[in-house]
């Protein structure tokens, strides 16, 4: 296998990115190292914990299991696209209100998974949400507050 760098061009958070990367460079490492977008975190690097979840062409993807070269031509969204500390997106505000994070390490991955759910209120039942985030491990919250946050964000606040 060659380690010769490969040219890639992709869109990340609405901005064009051009780079030369080794074929073995994962998308996660590319985002974190080359693009300095360190909001995407690495919890296991074997595709189980979901902390590295980003959107690639609208789908939630484990960026630790994908090579950067596979994202050539793709439209990638990371947590940095959602909001800033001074201007939180409504999804992020819902997490603040619900107490949906503690250490924050798994949080960007969960936000991306929630984002990929779209704005479909039919999916806003607890069981649908739990199913959707079943592949995002969190060691701090016990998940209840995360589910509540996503339920609010999806527009259905039954309070149950």
């Amino acid at each position, binding site marked *: 296998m060659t380690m010769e760098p490969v040219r890639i061009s992709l869109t990340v958070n609405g901005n064009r990115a051009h780079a030369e990367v080794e074929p073995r460079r994962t998308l996660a490492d590319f985002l974190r190292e080359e693009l300095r977008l360190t909001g995407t975190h690495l919890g296991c690097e074997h595709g189980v914990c979901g902390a590295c979840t980003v959107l690639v062409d609208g789908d939630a993807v484990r960026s630790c299991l994908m090579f950067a070269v596979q994202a050539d031509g793709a439209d990638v969204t990371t947590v940095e696209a959602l909001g800033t500390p001074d201007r939180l997106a409504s999804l992020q505000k819902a997490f603040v209100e619900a107490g949906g*994070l503690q*250490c924050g*390490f798994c949080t960007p991955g969960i936000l991306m998974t929630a984002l990929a759910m779209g704005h479909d209120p039919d999916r806003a039942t607890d069981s649908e949400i739990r199913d959707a985030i079943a592949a995002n*491990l*969190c060691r701090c919250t016990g998940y209840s507050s995360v589910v509540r946050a996503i339920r609010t964000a999806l527009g259905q606040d039954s309070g149950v």
Partner: protein
Amino acid sequence: MSEPLIGRSIPRSEDRRLLTGNGRFVADIRLPDMLHMAVVRSALPHALVRAVDTAPARALSGVVDAFSATDIPEYLRPLPSQRPIADDGLRQLLLGSDRVRYVGEPLAVTVAETRHRAEDAVAAIFPDLEPLPVIADAASAQDASAGGLFEDQSNVVLEVVKDVGDWTGIDDADVIVEDTLRVQRHTSAPLETRGLVARPDGDGGLTIWGIAKMPHSLRGGIASFLGLPAEKVRVQPVDVGGGFGVRGEFYPEEILVPLAALRTRHPVSWIEDRREHLLGTNHSREITWMVRAGAHRDGRLSFLEATAEIDVGAYLRPLVPVIAEQASTNLMGPYRIPRYRCRAVCVLSNKMGIGTVRGPGRFEATFARERIFDLLADRIGMDPAEFRDWNLLEASDYPYRTGVQAFGRDITYDSGNPRAALRAAVEAVDTSEIERLDAEARARGKRLGYGIAPFIESTGAGLFEMARVAVEPPGTVVVRTGTTSMGQGHETTLAQIAADAVGVSFDDVKVMEGDPDGVPTGVGTFGSRTTVMAGNAVWLAGRQLRERLYTLDPGGQPLATILQEARKRGVSLDVSQEFRSEDPTYAYGTHVAVVEVDPELGTARLVRYVVVADVGRVVNPAIVTGQIQGGAAQGIGGALLEELAYSEDGQLLTSSFMDYLLPTAMDIPDIEVVLLNLAPSPRNPLGIKGAGEVGTVAAGAAVANAVADAMKPNGGAMLSLPLKPDRVVSTSSGGHSASP
């Protein structure tokens, strides 16, 4: 002045940066000319080290340094320890030197321009190891024929005995139950693995990122080990992705990373991967209990005695005595027990060493006690809740002198009403609700089980904590402590306390933790102590500051103005105050688990989970609730899913998240938290007890009691955790003969 902040669920100040990807975790640190470190780890569990030749690594392009024990003879000493360890000979050295004793033990270090290259360098090093017989577990370690992990040294390295009561006359017990129970090896597995970045500074000193839990003592220990004055080792606080006890001990890497930085004269970054984490970050919980308990026919307890065999792994790590003390005293629980004795025995084996993990020794002890109490109640023919009700302490028993000591201090429970907590728990899931859930379960071909587990635990460990509260430009109250947040929301909780103490608004306060140069002294974050110890120190310091502000300006001017006035008059607005407490506080409560079990598959699903807890005065209810919910999730994981399994030949079988199973959103129900607030602690001005571990401590017990209830009358006794499906359906009567 406005309404007090203490007691209100103020939204967390940490959230904004963490939600937007602006957290600063150690793996996010980028410094110019930074190099990357990787670790060569033993592939054998027990071996003599003949040679570790690092030359092939250094020959690779891009590799700047590689060293093993023989390259650093001046540093080949036992790792520093926060607690005095009786026997130096049982401690781990910085790098494996004559012998390695667990798979994963560090043998050498490589430093290269990229992490890829550093790992290539690791692959180029072939340690020459001569295998020794493997001592696979505590049982075989005590065989007469077993060799010692250390020359001329027994594998039984510590024994702790607690004994109270008059043991004559125990024959008057009508019913006696005796059994062996096992808690499996598992750990806290935070989502962020360990990591460190060290940068050599121009003055021969260093700056380090990634220090957590106990900044002052870690900084001091690192400085001392490397022969540097403490003030030349600076600690930069970082965001930390969970801890739950396993961080902040002196692992080899705490010294190796700074050493690599000094040797290469470059900043060096080391980030643990998940396999390394499961191999080499503290394990815990592996205790085998032999328990015997007796009661009278009317339900009154007569005696409780046990031996706890603790598998401590290959070295006597610094927190092993804490686990032994906690296990042997916490078995007593919140009960009136006329006769109690417990002997905790710590045994070596060729596995990773252990440390404190959320509710250390107490998760295990609560499981053993509450499972035995269910068996005892069953033998008497009494309802489990009624049996507890007979024997639990109540308010009139307090302060309750247990008659045992931990680390030489009498254990006296400060305040509480465990009986009331039990009653609240029983009310939370009442009979009609259980009947309804039972009918639903049956309709699905499942069996419903209901389990309870009262608990008590020491929280807010002493001895002291210091807070520094100061007014600084542009008019902010800055709070500094030597504690560290790993997700618990200290920035918010301590700000609430400071704002109330000083008499300012929440937004006027900024909390900065974790810098050992920011406050003269400190202890750290563990044992549910930060809000108790640092919180009270902040309160005391803040009150003093309030008085000074008042003498300068009784009129309520803005802080910026008062600051100028203070400068003019030479009045200091920088107060450091210690809070001291010799004795811990005691949080308590009862867990309730309702499970649905598939009788053929043995799979258990939690239908309801309730934690009733009294943690004294609550500063931020939302934060405390979140901590308890997260703690319960960890405890449920320990009850049903998690296990660090070793093979007979000492290899770790569960070295990834594919095998070490963490609970997901599908495994954990909504954890219902009922905060009782019946009994503030008299041991500190704010009346706070710690809350961080309360969700975990009784979860193993509650879930096991529930599953056992579901599988009656012909199911297994649920005496071994985790309750894997094959164990649940096993019809054997004893836990020790269930499948491995």
